[in-house]
């Protein structure tokens, strides 16, 4: 029998216990629905309020979080989430407006959305922005649908291939797969750039376009970026930018200026929307002129211009060749757009540039501190993240072991085994919100672990040992597939 640290909410249930009660009905009683339409049982927990609170507080203490410490998870941009965002997004005027209210009653929401569209256009150099997509992958699919629609409208039906570098996030090929297109993988060269020879060979009239993360997942800004885009455009393809790594580029360079045709933003990375233990995110998409008419509908637009005395009147508009709707209603307004708007408003143009400069400085500083202890396969000035190899000559220690050992030193591990082109990859993204002391301590821990890997490898193999839980049996989880728990009384009836 396994030891139980915290029972499930079902195990805490006991028949007859009550939590929050609802008021008695103030209307005359109506007959109930016909019996054959009613459910026979409602097998949900019965718990008192105090026990619910204690349960979730106990669970919360089993999590590591940005509020507790350093979280250098590569390509995830785990920066500090300003507390003020948590207040602004809960103002009653935002919290309690219905998505289908008449537009004259929600001009504040529409003004916020319109300004956020304009700000994201300015930051990225694009001609149009949709706020509808719910997350990065959702934005990617939006972009791929627009690219397909663009070629289709031109009657160019033979384009079925998407070019994707070998360092790309898995969501890129998955988005393409959902559209029934095929993927052509483009290798990286020895400086971490797109291999131009391979790209040239792949560029022909069957290419839909290319999906490129820049800086890429090695943390490298592609030194031939303009050439890459020129080649893709040269064969009639469109250039997609994965904005997951935009935290390196604010006020540094605008993807639209470089020639990208479409890019998604991750407001939950770059613009401080918290990750929520897995979501919700917010994945707006920016487009250049070529794709402007294909954006999902609706967008927020000005229906009547304002003047010195009166604000403009905002409403919804539908682009001419819109691909349609990506989700119900208008996107992640409260949890995504309001927080990101607050964050951008508090930075202004100079503050945004500071973000990227310090994100890049912190990454380079860490890289410099650990360079002589870990192999850095692409060793040049990096952008906001870098990739080291978590393996050591004469030791059987792997990247996973290094990561687990970092927990013993009180840190969240970096991203492991990604990008796939680096063996035993440790992908480290410190973000701009960490101070020098934290970076020094983290570097010291990594250096110490590198020594342990050679002299006391069992410390790494057995890590973590200071956390509340040790390593998990993932094979057992997949083999037994216990995906639900039940009320104690139901469970007894089942076995």
């Amino acid at each position, binding site marked *: 029998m396994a030891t139980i640290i915290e029972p499930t909410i079902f195990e805490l249930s006991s028949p007859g216990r009550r939590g929050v009660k609802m008021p008695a009905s103030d209307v005359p009683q109506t007959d109930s629905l016909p019996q054959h339409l009613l459910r026979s049982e409602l097998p949900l927990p019965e718990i008192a309020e105090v026990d619910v609170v204690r349960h979730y507080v106990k669970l919360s203490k089993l999590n590591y979080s940005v509020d507790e410490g350093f979280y250098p998870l590569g390509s995830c941009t785990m920066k500090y989430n300003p507390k003020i965002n948590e207040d602004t997004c809960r103002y009653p005027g935002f919290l309690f407006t219905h998505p289908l209210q008449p537009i004259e009653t929600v001009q504040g929401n529409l003004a916020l959305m319109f300004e956020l569209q304009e700000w994201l256009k300015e930051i990225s150099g694009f001609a149009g922005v949709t706020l509808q997509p719910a997350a990065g992958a959702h934005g990617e699919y939006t972009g791929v649908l627009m690219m397909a629609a663009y070629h289709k409208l031109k009657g160019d039906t033979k384009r079925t291939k998407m070019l994707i570098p070998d360092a790309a996030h898995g969501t890129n090929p998955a988005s393409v797969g959902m559209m029934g297109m095929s*993927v052509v993988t483009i290798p990286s060269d020895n400086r971490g750039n797109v291999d131009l020879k391979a790209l040239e060979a792949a560029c022909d009239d069957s290419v839909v376009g290319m999906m490129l993360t820049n800086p890429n997942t090695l943390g490298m800004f592609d030194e031939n970026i303009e050439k890459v885009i020129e080649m893709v455009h040269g064969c009639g393809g469109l250039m997609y930018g994965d904005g997951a790594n935009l935290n390196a580029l604010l006020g540094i360079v605008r993807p639209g200026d470089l020639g990208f045709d479409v890019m998604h933003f991750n407001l939950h990375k770059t613009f401080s929307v918290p990750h929520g233990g897995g979501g919700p995110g917010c994945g707006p998409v920016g487009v250049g002129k070529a794709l402007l008419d294909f954006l999902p509908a609706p967008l927020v637009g000005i229906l009547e211009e304002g003047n010195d005395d009166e604000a403009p009147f905002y409403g919804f508009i539908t682009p001419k060749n819109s691909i349609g709707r990506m989700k119900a209603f208008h996107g992640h307004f409260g*949890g995504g757009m309001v927080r990101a708007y607050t964050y951008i408003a508090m930075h202004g143009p100079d503050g945004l540039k500071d973000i990227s400069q310090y994100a890049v400085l912190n990454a380079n500083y860490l890289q410099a501190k650990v360079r002589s202890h870990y192999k850095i396969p692409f060793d040049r000035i990096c952008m906001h993240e870098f990739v080291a190899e978590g393996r050591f000559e004469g030791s059987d220690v792997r990247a996973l072991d290094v990561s687990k050992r970092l927990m013993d030193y009180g840190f969240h591990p970096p991203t492991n085994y990604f990008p796939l082109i680096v063996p035993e990859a440790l992908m480290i993204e410190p973000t701009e919100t960490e101070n020098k002391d934290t970076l020094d301590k983290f570097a010291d821990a990594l250096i110490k672990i590198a020594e342990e890997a050679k002299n006391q490898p069992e410390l790494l193999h057995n890590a973590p040992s200071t956390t509340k839980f*040790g390593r998990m049996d993932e094979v057992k989880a997949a083999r037994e597939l216990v995906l639900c728990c039940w009320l104690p009384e139901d469970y007894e009836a089942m076995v």
Partner: protein
Amino acid sequence: MTFIPTSPAETEAMLETVGVKSLDDLFDAVPKKHRFPKLNLPPALTEMEAAAHLNEMAMSNENVRQDLVSFLGAGAYNHYVPSVVDHMLRRGEFYTAYTPYQPEISQGTLQAVFEFQSLMANLTGMDVSNASHYDGATATAEAVSLAYAQYRGKRKRIVMSPALHPQYRDVVDTYTQGMGIETVGDEETNLTLSPESLTSYIDENTMIVIIQYPDFLGRIFDYKKVIDDAHAKGALVCVVANPTALLMLKTPGEMGADMVVGEAQPFGIPIWYGGPYLGFFTTKKSYVHKMAGRLVGETMDVRGQRSYVLTLTAREQHIKRERATSNICTNQGLLALAASVYMSVLGKEGLKEVANLCYQKAHYAANELSKLKGFKLFSSEPFFHEFTLECPKPASEVNQYLLDHGILGGYDLGNDYPELKNHLLVAVTEMNSKEEIDALVEVLKEM
């Protein structure tokens, strides 16, 4: 330098360690002519100024708690959220954590998701639930992806009810643009027919039948016959359900549904001008390998402690890349927690009370409104907390009149169904007092 903790002296020291002279020197790889663009954005606000500015924007809206009485639903419902829910969501340990890739230090999120899966499976009468989708509409589209994968792309037909939420139908159309499939059954002429009329569209080429419960017009049907007919042709059936209604109604699982999906916003999530909400996705165990999204399973750690991990990850995009069923990565984790806390703190009895209040108040409203001259219920089918009201003039005019009296009337069905331009979809929840319902009736009587 709003949230950057580094001092000028530390900056100098760090630059020296890196081996560059200035921050700008870190960006030599960026093409010079595009480097350091001047951004035309408003100057930075302090926290105090930002709070005031945002508050002003929020105040310029008319909200349904302080300014307007609302009978508007149509996929987003104004319910009471017990205080405990937001107190739990505001714990930084939950909301500032990432997706639980490192289970040793993420057991809080993992157990909470495991419990969410259990709660949703019990609610819908299905075997398994995933960790969430973006919203009810995208969960519906992912049901199509499951069916498409189940038949390896060989079946090419979707049969869709015209009484499925119009925006959900739009999203299914958008998502499936590249699959080379046809969608049938959703013609407006089918709106007044029984759900069994969909049977005539189901053939050996049909991968999925999608129906809503209660449907978009509020009607409750027993779908057992349609589901049996679909299964006879080998098609899967997805029921898009309202979770509050499921607290009272027979589960789609009992009717034989293969997938039960929907929008769990009514469970502890504010209407928030449309999002973020919470798509749920439940199915039978036999389809678990084809299901998209994250999944948490129970296991044990090396110390013999019960624990939880993300499992069956080989289905997902980061392993399977272009062969994955879906590209989903980030989901609605924190809102799944909201729904779990909501269900837990109201508990079985509190939830039944919510459902009963919705039911009683909606029926009182329907009864009183249909007594008014020129108004009547569109359908005699049973309903839960939302019903279609035929009005003596266009719904848009009725709504404008109500808005002048501080009431959000209902959803104008003429937006989506031209033949129903005189029809309002009216939603009533536990938030609507008898006084509010009587006011609605009174205003319409004087119209």
